[in-house]
């Protein structure tokens, strides 16, 4: 096997490992938010909304974490992986 071929394969492996890592960032963040919601369900006031004020119902930290992961996974990661694979 030629040295050039080995080098190209190694570079492709590195690119695909990076693409996988970028692809995992969003889902891992979402998973973190879901795990947090299970560990501290009282942080999601929507589950027991009676007597809660506007801000307590609007700002739900575990859901914000899930939201960030979702935004990253839907809007940032796909294009980035595409560009990385075209590299």
């Amino acid at each position, binding site marked *: 096997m030629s040295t050039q071929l080995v080098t190209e394969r190694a570079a492709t492996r590195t690119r695909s490992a*990076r693409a996988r*890592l*970028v692809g995992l*960032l*969003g889902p891992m*963040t979402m998973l973190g938010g879901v795990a947090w919601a299970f560990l501290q369900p*009282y942080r999601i006031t929507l589950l027991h909304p009676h007597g809660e004020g*506007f*801000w*307590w119902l609007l*700002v739900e*930290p575990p859901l*914000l*974490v899930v*939201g*960030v*992961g979702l*935004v*990253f996974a839907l809007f*940032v*990661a796909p*294009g*980035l992986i595409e*560009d*990385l694979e075209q*590299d």
Partner: protein
Amino acid sequence: MEPPAEHVHWLFATGFLLLGLCLLARAVVGAEVWDRRAWRAYLWPSLLFGLGVFMWPVMVFFTNSTIHMVAHGAWAQTMMLAGAAELGLVRGKLHNRAWHLAFPLALAVSGIALLVHEQNGWLFARAAFLHHALGWAALVGAVFPTLAVLQPRRRAWPAGVALTLVVLSVFLFADRDVAPIFGHLSQRAGVAHR
């Protein structure tokens, strides 16, 4: 109708988490690939600038002492400066690489401001503990973007910057106005929240 202080921390934590994820992805793929799409090149500096802008209403509505106001004002200014410097570099209006140092400056100023304006000890309450932890994390984290300017080829430094922001975000999400920390809550702190 103002949100409680901890909600403001959580909203900023959300912004820092998104910023951290973007910078982590940028560190993984490299600046060249990240900047291939124009909107993506502008994304993280705009986020940083926006977080600085949103710090102004925090300064106006949530500060109960002069030192709080000065600290929040300093954060707003340095975050906006760092975001604007990066935007200027991306746009090509600024050319000197030294402008990248605005980011470590923002982190260092934020760290110092956090440590100075928190006048209670570490174990006074959870908020006090987190202000100390945030201050030191920001101050130590300022080393990474400085090294990234000095050694632009090393990918570890941009990854360090991103992870610093993720850690700051976790600390901000952990904030609760009056809550115990490791079982400690000063009697002078007030009634504990959940």
